């Protein structure tokens, strides 16, 4: 590389020698009551993140109680150990500690971030809410109303509505994944304080709880704290998760969710995917990066940079213990909806019909390999990575071998992954948009007359 006369260098500089990087070291311990500890000591800043991972996600909810996992998790912050929710919030916040509590499909998570010198006090408050929540009737009712308000809002919010209607289309009606993670209006309205207490009693158990520490804390300090706060917590081992959360719906299906006069169509195209512990996970991840996982992926370059149909388009496998969805998502100007659907269907077919170029493979693998250290700059990101080890039972050396596993993916592996896990005949095409504008073009490109539905779930016409 030589500078031109009076100008800046005109050719791309070559990289210098890379410096080694290792994912932060971590250690495990188990308390005598079964509470597990994972600790990554990363003393860069005086800050620690703690995640309490509990086997209490939506996938283990009793039949007919959809939403009880999310509601139970949220209610942990609304009263515990004789202190009401307002006072509880005040105790965390007055020491600058940030705490959140939520449930996803697989687990419930309480997350805490605090300056290190506040950690003992803050963790004692987390102990209170995990072990002695009170679920006051008033707060149960208030958070139920809150969820119903969110559901109401969603009817006017195309992105959330498209996500929900897509999930509903991708799974068999009996599958838990077919209905919203936090429950629908009917299921939420039916939940009682007794349901919440029963779910808590069954699922919030020391033997189903993992405490993850990442940040300015040593294993010894973490263990001493955990033992003093959680060591005398007794209970039973929670039962394993039931089956049937992820049964797929066979065949193609096309739905338009009516939003009259919409200036854009929100599109979701995909089907039920595969579980996180699939043996060809790395092949699938790289395949998806080429298809729609990166800015420079086929789908985004096609829809955005070639056609200008959208501000962005992407694809993803959502990784859960069960078979989470594979979905392409974008929002396109209403009058190009049919053309955009056609381009997406073409890209899915192209992925399965011929191997990708070596150049496309190395773009994806060198990105995933190179970006690895950038993903773990924060205590929250390191803690989240360790949580994934726990939730999905990944090998202990997973983050040490991640980059070499990525680099080992071949064009043949990518083609196999596309052929095994992309199913053109099973695609669900869900459009939230103006039926008057989009129904006919979508019917033309998919070969199926769409069901026209209201945002509430009812069918308007066929």
């Amino acid at each position: 590389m030589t500078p031109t006369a009076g100008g800046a260098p005109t050719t791309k500089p070559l990289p210098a020698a890379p410096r080694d990087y290792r994912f932060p070291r971590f250690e495990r311990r188990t308390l005598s009551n079964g509470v597990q500890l994972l600790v990554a000591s990363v003393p860069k800043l005086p800050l620690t993140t703690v995640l309490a991972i509990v086997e209490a996600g939506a996938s283990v909810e009793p039949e007919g109680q959809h939403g009880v996992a999310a509601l139970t998790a949220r209610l942990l912050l609304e009263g515990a150990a004789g202190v009401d929710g307002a006072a509880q919030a005040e105790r965390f916040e007055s020491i600058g500690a940030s705490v959140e509590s939520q449930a996803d499909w697989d687990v419930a998570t309480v997350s805490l971030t605090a300056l290190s010198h506040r950690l003992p006090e803050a963790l004692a408050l987390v102990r209170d809410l995990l072990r002695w929540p009170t679920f006051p009737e008033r707060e149960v009712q208030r958070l139920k109303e809150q969820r119903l308000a969110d559901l109401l809002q969603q009817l006017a919010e195309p992105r959330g509505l498209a996500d929900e209607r897509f999930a509903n289309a991708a799974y068999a009606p009996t599958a838990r994944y077919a209905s919203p993670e936090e429950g629908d209006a009917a299921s939420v309205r039916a939940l009682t304080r007794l349901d919440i207490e029963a779910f808590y009693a069954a699922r919030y158990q020391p033997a189903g709880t993992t405490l993850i520490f990442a940040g300015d804390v040593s294993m010894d300090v973490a263990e001493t704290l955990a033992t003093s706060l959680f060591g005398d917590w007794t209970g039973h081992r929670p039962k394993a998760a039931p089956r049937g959360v992820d049964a797929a719906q066979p065949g193609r299906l096309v739905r338009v969710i009516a939003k009259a006069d919409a200036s854009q169509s929100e599109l979701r195209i995909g089907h039920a995917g595969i579980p996180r512990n699939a043996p060809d996970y790395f092949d699938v991840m790289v395949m998806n990066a080429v298809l729609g996982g990166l800015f420079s992926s086929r789908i985004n370059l096609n829809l955005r940079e070639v056609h200008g149909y959208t501000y962005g388009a992407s694809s993803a496998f959502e990784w859960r213990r069960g078979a989470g969805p594979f979905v392409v998502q974008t929002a396109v100007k209403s009058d190009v909806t049919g053309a955009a659907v056609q381009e997406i269907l073409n890209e899915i077919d192209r992925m399965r019909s011929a191997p990708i170029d070596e150049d496309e493979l190395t773009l994806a693998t060198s990105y995933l390999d190179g970006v690895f250290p950038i993903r773990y700059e924060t205590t929250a990101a390191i803690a989240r990575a360790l949580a994934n080890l726990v939730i999905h039972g990944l090998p202990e050396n997973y983050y040490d071998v991640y980059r070499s596993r990525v680099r080992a993916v071949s064009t043949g592996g990518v083609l196999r992954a596309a052929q095994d896990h992309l199913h053109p005949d099973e695609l669900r095409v869900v459009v939230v948009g103006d039926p008057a504008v989009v129904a006919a073009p979508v019917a033309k490109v998919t070969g199926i007359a769409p069901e026209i539905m209201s945002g509430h779930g009812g069918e308007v016409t066929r």
Partner: protein
Amino acid sequence: MHIPIETFELTNGLSVVLSTDHTAPIVAVNLWYHVGSANERPGRTGFAHLFEHMLFQGSANVGSNEHFELVQRAGGTLNGSTWLDRTNYFETVPSNQLELALWLEANRMGYLLPAMTQQKLDTQRDVVQNERRWSMDNQPYGTWWERLPALAFPEGHPFHHSLIGSMRDLDAASLDDIATFFSTYYTPDNAVLSIAGDFEAAATRSMVERHFGAIPRGSGKPPLADMTLAPTFGCALREVVSDDVMLPRLFIAFRSPVLGTDEYFAASVTSAVLGLKKGSRLQRVLVREQQIAAEAAAFTYDLSKGSDLLVVDVTARPETSAAALEAAVHAELDHLVADGVTAAEVARAIALIETELTVALQSAGDRADKLSMFATYFGDPGLVNVQAERYRAVTEERVNAYIRTHLVPDNRASLLYVPREPVHAPLQDDLAMAEPP
């Protein structure tokens, strides 16, 4: 918390800020250009942001889709953003790829125009118009982004008009506009380059000189219109928007002192007292106790020129009417003005802010962006190291003095969203099955 800072200036006027941290082999490159939507000329709203998109379309030595691809192939992340008075471009890359990031940034700062074509402009215009639909037109309450500044800043003020721009003005943008905007504003003397992370300072300095040194200084930019305004609105302002939303939502903007002043810190603490997390005043009273609101928040825009805005944002519960929402929020504000806040509320707010300031210093990208901000607005990136101190110096008295002068009824600009068709008893048992009328 004290992060190391070294600064220098190239002869062409480019300000450079370096901050080393060798804990991981990562480096962030961040460029702030001191130009935003405030600098747009009449009839060209949205141009600064459209221009930002064009900076990812290649330059003299970089192909059309190459900018994103080269950074991603190197294992880096990247983006850009446009604000009222600045535009930034940034990438975080493995530290051995630092020179690639500098080369890409220098190439588009120095040699953008040969790569600009009508076709690229037309495509990015479509992309940006879709961004407008996605973020504003097809999103409930989405238009607050342009309605609130339009209400809070007078006609003709540089912050009054839409940042994303009108469809008509976007349609009118031409390649000539690109060339003029580029030569006026995208010059080294109108930019700050910050580099944070794992690098060697002396070698990096010569690398910066090699890549950016030959880019000519600009010939000056036209001054912004006078942004001086009275310290408060002087009367209540109010706009009601009937929109495709399910629940009423009220934004109230208060005119407020600019970023960096002592009064700004009091305003920022006030916003945390009002709306940061569950223990904040509005969440405690309106969401938990009165159960009138589903959500409540407050924040400052952090504007550094003329005047800033503090904003309160409250969404109604389904059974709360727009009128009841508005009355309850104003009643709580009146109560604050009359009785003030407590020392405990101020201490809570400052404790949370202090943790947030530390959290925000973890990533190289966030560090570099903060350094660029302080260098661009105040000529002193070292201000990043005194923020916590300045927050800690805020007292209950200062917060209450701010509240008495700025949260008063004649300094409130209300933007109220109401559902287009009234929603009656929306949570009856037929919600899940109901058909639209």
